[in-house]
């Protein structure tokens, strides 16, 4: 119990004193997870929507695979990305290992199935509603997907935020591919793991509270933005 209190105090101390390292790793956490989110959404939103509107032979199999990939252990993703990006691996020449780019790649792989699956679920309902009209208006697949994504954006936002939450709280994969290098690839979660390892629970917990606060802040910010954009619910 004492330790939790010490953690809260530590979190406030870090924030109030504008701790330079804290800002650096917090900013990097945001930068990595936001980039991963944007890239994952570029793939996952159209793909999930396409799955909802398209009937094809391996559709059920694809959806089942997607749902299984949602539970992919991050450490395994990290290991595979490490082996691919390692100097001795197929993409070693790119020199991407132990850079924020490598961390973004790993997170994209981790959250894309999650966002695609949530997108698929949300879009199925909307497609049932829009189906007749969009077919009647002779829309192309592209137009259908764009219409559904635009009109379903509230539900998709929830999916995207779930993806962001998973990305920013993830430690196993980015530890392996990022290496937790101070001033280069250290982010909130890897710093927490490091401080826990040193037995400095107060600092670790303080960072943990900063992480939670950050996740809440991003959620509130995005929800507020989407609320002011248009009043009322559909």
């Amino acid at each position, binding site marked *: 119990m004492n330790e939790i209190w010490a953690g809260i105090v530590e979190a406030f101390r870090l924030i109030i004193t504008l701790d330079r390292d804290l800002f650096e790793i917090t900013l990097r956490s945001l930068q990595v997870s936001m980039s991963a989110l944007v890239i994952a959404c570029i793939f996952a939103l159209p793909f999930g929507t396409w799955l909802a509107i398209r009937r094809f032979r391996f559709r059920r199999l694809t959806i089942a695979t997607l749902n299984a990939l949602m539970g992919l252990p991050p450490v395994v993703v990290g290991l595979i990305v490490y082996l691919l990006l390692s100097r001795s691996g197929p993409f070693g020449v790119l020199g991407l290992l132990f850079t924020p780019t490598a961390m973004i790649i790993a997170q994209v792989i981790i959250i894309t199935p999650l966002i695609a699956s949530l997108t698929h679920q949300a879009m199925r309902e909307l497609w049932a509603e*829009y189906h*007749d009209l969009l*077919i*009647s208006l002779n*829309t192309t697949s592209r*137009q259908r997907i764009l*219409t559904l994504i635009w*009109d*379903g954006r509230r539900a998709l936002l929830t999916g995207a935020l779930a993806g962001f939450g998973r990305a920013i709280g993830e430690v196993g994969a980015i530890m392996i591919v990022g290496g937790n290098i101070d001033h280069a690839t250290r982010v909130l979660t890897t710093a927490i793991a490091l401080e826990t390892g040193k037995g400095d629970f107060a600092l670790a917990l303080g960072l943990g509270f900063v992480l939670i606060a950050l996740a809440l802040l991003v959620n509130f910010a995005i929800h507020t933005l989407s609320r002011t954009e248009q009043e009322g619910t559909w």
Partner: protein
Amino acid sequence: MVAGINLVALRAVCVKRRSKLILGPVSLDLKGSGLTIVLGPNGAGKTTFLKVLHGIERISSGSVQWSMAERSVRRTQSYVFQRPVMLRRTVRQNLAYPMKLLGQQASKIDEHVIYWANQIGLTEMLNSPATRLSGGEKQKLALGRALIRKPKILFLDEPCANLDGRSTREIETLLLSANSSGTRIIMATHDLGQSRRLATDVVFLLNGQVHEQGPAEDILCSPQTSEAKAFLKGEIVE
């Protein structure tokens, strides 16, 4: 389109769902002008029939042959569904949607949206969410969104079911004016009064079969088949 020339020809069209025949076999021709009422009680197959014509219901056998080129069939047709589909957008965006799909200029879209909002009496509500409209307003919006594409052929599936007298008359006025400016209308209803007010010709459906087809005054005043007689007398309710 010249009156008297066949617009579309159906030959032995059947629609089966789960090995049950829900429409057909239907063989008939529709002429190039006028306002056709597809008349029949609930469950007769009116919706299925309209969707087959529009090409959004798969047929199990038979053929549907339009007189125009295959490619332009769907592009020149609009369809107002029995339960109108409202995009989760404002009234303005709902009206603009079909024109946006065609990639038209914003200024031209605006102009048409204003015109049609006025026609359907929703100018005041242009910026309200379409899903919040009343049943009658939704039907009018769906009609405006169908007409904004300037269709050659307009399908309507019971557009006035559940509407009060005033909304019904407003919609009928819009339909008659569209019809007189050259839009071919094919409309399903189970409302005899509406049929009398609007129809130039009638297709009478019962249990998935066409029992009578011909000019409105013939069928509505002196039906030939016993089924049509019974329906006109109000004996077939469901």
